[in-house]
């Protein structure tokens, strides 16, 4: 099976069309299962009461925000090196979903911090790095949007993503260093409540659900990007199917 056949937007478009519903269904099913575990199976935490249940979306979203940035930088690098348009389209399709995941991680993090530590925003190493990651996403999307010619926009944003992905570990290390220097890490989200197996299971199921969601969202957005960019090529004309 020649995988390269799918590297051209024309052959990838219908394939993605068939895959998207599969990922949506998987995402919903796994989310329902995860929420069921999170709310009905996992016991109440003796320290934090029921507020800790926010962990079932906070941690998956945080994982996904980091994972999507890496995958995005990977596609961007591929597009830059191999000059394949589809990989660059995939990178710009992933960016908004990644930024959304980062925002969700920040939002749920502060909603979890309020009842547990009494403040809406905690300058904790992970939350602060999450905030900086959001800036990186916004930088990627802003640069891509401000260049008119799509091909140049892809390449410029790809270079930014590569420089960004090299900086992410450095940023995380420096923020952790800064955090221990100033607070001695008295307040930190990293020490989540003792992870009973059901809690861990719930979180993993939710993480996979978020993953399916991100794939479906990115594939759907990449189809729109293909339509917008390939407007002039002949194969668009024969698109009969309504979807």
């Amino acid at each position: 099976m020649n995988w390269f056949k799918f590297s051209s937007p024309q052959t990838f478009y219908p394939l993605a069309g068939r895959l998207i519903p599969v990922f949506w269904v998987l995402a919903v099913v796994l989310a329902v299962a995860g929420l069921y575990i999170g709310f009905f199976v996992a016991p109440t935490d003796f320290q934090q009461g029921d507020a800790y249940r926010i962990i079932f979306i906070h941690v998956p979203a945080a994982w996904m925000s980091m994972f999507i940035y890496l995958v995005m930088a990977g596609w961007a690098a591929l597009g830059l090196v191999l000059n394949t348009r589809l990989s660059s389209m995939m990178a710009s399709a992933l960016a908004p979903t990644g930024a959304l995941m980062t925002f969700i991680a920040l939002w749920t993090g502060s909603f979890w911090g309020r009842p547990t530590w009494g403040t809406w925003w905690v300058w904790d190493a992970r939350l602060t790095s999450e905030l900086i990651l959001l800036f990186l996403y916004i930088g990627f999307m802003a640069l891509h949007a401000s260049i008119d010619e799509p091909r140049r926009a892809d390449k410029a944003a790809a270079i930014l993503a590569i420089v960004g992905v090299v900086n992410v570990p450095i940023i995380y290390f420096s923020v952790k260093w800064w955090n221990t220097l100033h607070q001695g890490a008295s307040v930190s989200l990293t020490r989540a409540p003792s992870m009973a197996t059901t809690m861990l299971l719930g979180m993993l199921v939710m993480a996979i659900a978020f993953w399916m969601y991100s794939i479906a969202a990115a594939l759907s957005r990449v189809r729109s990007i293909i339509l917008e960019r390939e407007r002039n090529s002949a194969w668009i004309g024969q698109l009969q199917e309504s979807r």
Partner: protein
Amino acid sequence: MLEVRDLACWRGDQCLFDGLDVRLGAGEVLWIEGANGSGKTSLMRILCGLSPPERGEIRWKGRTLREGRDTLLHDLMYLGHLNALKDDLTVAENLDFHASILELPRDGRLVGEAIEAVGLTSRQDLPVRVLSQGQRRRAALARLWLATDRPLWILDEPFAALDTASVDSLSDLVASHVERGHVVVLSTHQEVPLPVSRTRRLRLDALSR
């Protein structure tokens, strides 16, 4: 020396030219003609390797631009649409700078002769800012007198804004350069006295789709 096979160039959704095949031997001039926006400058930038073509291949001395990039950079002399002159620097300083970064011969005598050849000796210590458009173009052209050993010249509208005397001296230079077995690719709108036997004309708008 310079081979162009089935070259195509698009600007956004519009095809500038397609299916361009040219083969230039030693001692030939390629005269590119075409209306404004027909892709003359784009073609020249593609030949220099500055921008990638939509399709097609370019070979210099038998090797593609990707493999033979170093040889091309050592052999090429590109005069763009823009003069590449810094307004705050004098004519002499600009020329000296270009000679350094392009690794052209730089001793005082040659630089002096180049400025002499474009008739700017009296203004060589003035900042380029105060020069007229024609004088600036001549200041930019001075590099060519330093680059007589470069086998490939790519000149984008070199005769623009030049008076008749400068046009003649430039076309003589191009003629002598080509007689030494080098290759010159240039674009211009004016009828310029070039060595007819060695000149090939190419109309770009005939190739657009």
